[in-house]
Structure formats: structure tokens, C-alpha cells
């Protein structure tokens, strides 16, 4: 799981172009939206694309998305249980 968490952090930094942020700066359990990284709705779309492209997981329900994108750890657990890639 820790390996997946690190991989996910790196992918998020790259896809969201989070300049000057390293994987170590991202709190695994902090909220991704609002507080924490302070992501917004466009970032949510980017994360949905990332899930689909890299892990074969299609997130087409916004309520479900809110749960999955709660934190890096929640995301990683969901990916681990549902990935097809």
C-alpha cells in the first residue's frame, strides 16, 4: 500500500502540475479538496481521468467521487481494491 501511495502522490503532482510540492509534502490522510492541497473541481476531473487512464477505474458518479477523493489513503485503498490495470 505504501508503494501505491507514493506512486499516486507522484502522479497527482505531475498531472496537476503542483510546482514545488514533493510527495513528502502531501499528507496521506489530509483532505484533497478545500483544505489540504486545496484542489478544485477541475482537479477532480483530472483525478477522474488519472484513475481511468492509469488504473482502469471509471468514476462516473460525483457522490462516489467525493468519497474516493477524500484523501490519498482513501484513493489508494479504492484503487487497490478496484484496479483493472
Amino acid at each position, binding site marked *: 500500500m505504501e508503494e501505491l501511495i507514493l506512486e499516486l502522490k507522484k502522479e497527482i503532482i505531475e*498531472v*496537476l*502540475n*503542483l*510546482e*514545488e510540492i514533493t510527495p513528502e509534502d502531501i499528507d496521506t490522510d489530509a483532505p484533497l479538496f478545500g483544505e489540504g492541497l*486545496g484542489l478544485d473541481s*477541475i482537479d477532480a*476531473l*483530472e483525478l477522474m*481521468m488519472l484513475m*481511468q*487512464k492509469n488504473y482502469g477505474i471509471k468514476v462516473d458518479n460525483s457522490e462516489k467521487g467525493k468519497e474516493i477523493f477524500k484523501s490519498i489513503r482513501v484513493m489508494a485503498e479504492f484503487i487497490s481494491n478496484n484496479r483493472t490495470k
Partner: protein
Amino acid sequence: MEIFIQSAAQISIQNPLCEDWFETPIIPTLPYNRSIEPDYKQFILPIASRRMGKLIKRAIATSLSALKQADIQELDAIITGTGLGCVENTEKFLSAMVKEGEEFLQPTFFMQSTHNTISSQVALFLKCNGYNCTYSHRGTSFESALSDAFIQLKLGKIKNALVGGQDEMTPDYFNMLGKIGYWKTEISPEILQTSNSNGSFAGECSAAITLGTEQKEQSLCKLHDVELLYKPSKERMQEVLQDMMTQANISSIDAVMLGISGDQKNDDIYKDFAETFFANKPICWYKNIFGESFTAPGFGVYTAATCLKKGIIPQHLRYNNIQEQELRTILVYNHFQNKDHSLILLSKC
């Protein structure tokens, strides 16, 4: 009503956001040159700039710099000329479509791949709800934007305007243009001045100028007229030039700023123009230090306005050796493929 160029700022292959090019220009030696990027953190927070492509960052930095110089607090209009828009993001978006199909397209690249993203991002950043327009007319995009601002100022619809010329040159686009003979393989000031071959060298353009109806201490020059002509005959060109000078109450042009770039096919048009209408006048160029791009004429206006403000033309901008008696008026002439032509008349404040 008089119109003034209040300020100007550039990011290009020269040192950015300064006038180093006026005294100590960087002399290009390669056919492909990217802009020198300033430290954008002094203008935009990293969290705000993370979705912005290079061109958007350049547009915001030059806009903020020009607005600060002109001390403009309330902006009435943002008008941008761009030949290609945010082509880097367009390429990323299209490449992803080719590679991945239509399923995995990233929204950011799509959102920022359109031509009018530049003007709108600048407006969002400045919180400017005024007139916002983008002109994408290939080699006369900048002049079209300038003409719009000029007309609106003359009509009294706006009191000031931010006009930008914004274009980037990606490696892929450079290579594509190279295949149809756009670039020389070797570049030097001598080659550009004496070559009998076609092609020039690539630059990138981010030029922002502010216009206003009120003369300020920092105003660079007066903008008397902007004329856009399509395939004009020599008679028509003569007529328009005469009209421009009559309207501006100007009896003589002291120097002519041309888009000569070392590309013989293009330069022949400029030389013919100069010989026909301005024989024995100082001829100046700017693409020798800024390179070729669709909105490069923005640098023509920028360099001419700077020369008028400083009262001198530096040696490296002189194409011939004729000296002016005094520097009060400069005509900027540009053409694109000998179809679209533009004339911009400037004078000292």
C-alpha cells in the same frame, strides 16, 4: 482625440521584462529560439499558475508589467492578437487524442488550447470585466488587435486598453514550418542582412502595450493611425500613406520600421516599399533580434515606441546607414505573405 502608447513590456528571446535589447541585445545564432522566462513567482502564485501554459504566464507577466509602468488601475479593454493561440496545449491535447483516443483527454489542456484563452486568462487574473477580444489573423493578428483598440479609443468607447501580441513556437511547429522553408540553417547578423536565400529564424512573442487618451509623463509616444490593407496597389498604398500623414498633421516620416527578417522573398516586398515611398530615409528592423513569429509586428511597435521615447535608434536596429536629422516620427510597416499589409504611424509625445 489623441491616443498615446503609455507603456510596453516584452518576453522574448531577449532578456525579459527589461530594455537590455536596446543597448546590449542578445545576438541569435540558431534558427530555433525559445523565450527567456522571467521568474513568474513575482507575478503569479504557483498554486494559481499550475494550470497555465508558458504563453499564459508570459501574457500575464507582460500585461502586469505594462499596466504597472502605465499606472493603470482600472482597465477598460483587453485585446489580444495571436496567430496560434496556446499551441503547446493544443498539441498536448491532440497528441493525447491520437495516442489514447477520446477517452482520456485532460480537461486542462482542452480548456487552455483555444486562442481566446490568453485574453480571458489575463482578464480573470486582473478581474477585468471590460471588453475582451481576441484576433487570430495569422501575420496581422497584433495589428488587428491594435486597430480595434485604436478605433474604440477614438470613438470614446474606452479610455484605456491593454493590447497584446502573444505567440509561442513549439518544437513540432518549428519542424513543420522548417519543411516548407521557413528557417535558415545558419544565423548571424551578416547572413540576415546579406543573404539571398529564403527563410529566417524563429522567435516567440509576448508583447503587451497599454494605450490611453491621456498623456502621462511615462507615455512612450503618440499613436496616430493604424491601417490594415489587403493586397493594396502602390497607388492605394501611396493614397493611404498620404491620408495618414495629413490626418496626423505630419509632413515627413523620420524613420521606417520594417519587418525585414533575412527571408529574401519577404524582404523584397519591404525593400520595394522602402525604395518606392521612403528612398533616402533611415530604415530600421527588429526581427534581427526578436526573430520571426506571427505576432512579431508587436515588437515592431514596441521597438519604435521605445526609440521615440529615448530619442535615438540604436545601431543594431538600423538596416541602412542613413541618419535622421531628428527623430520625431516612425512609420511601422508590416506585410504577411504580401497579402495583408499594415501601417502604423507613431510620433514623439
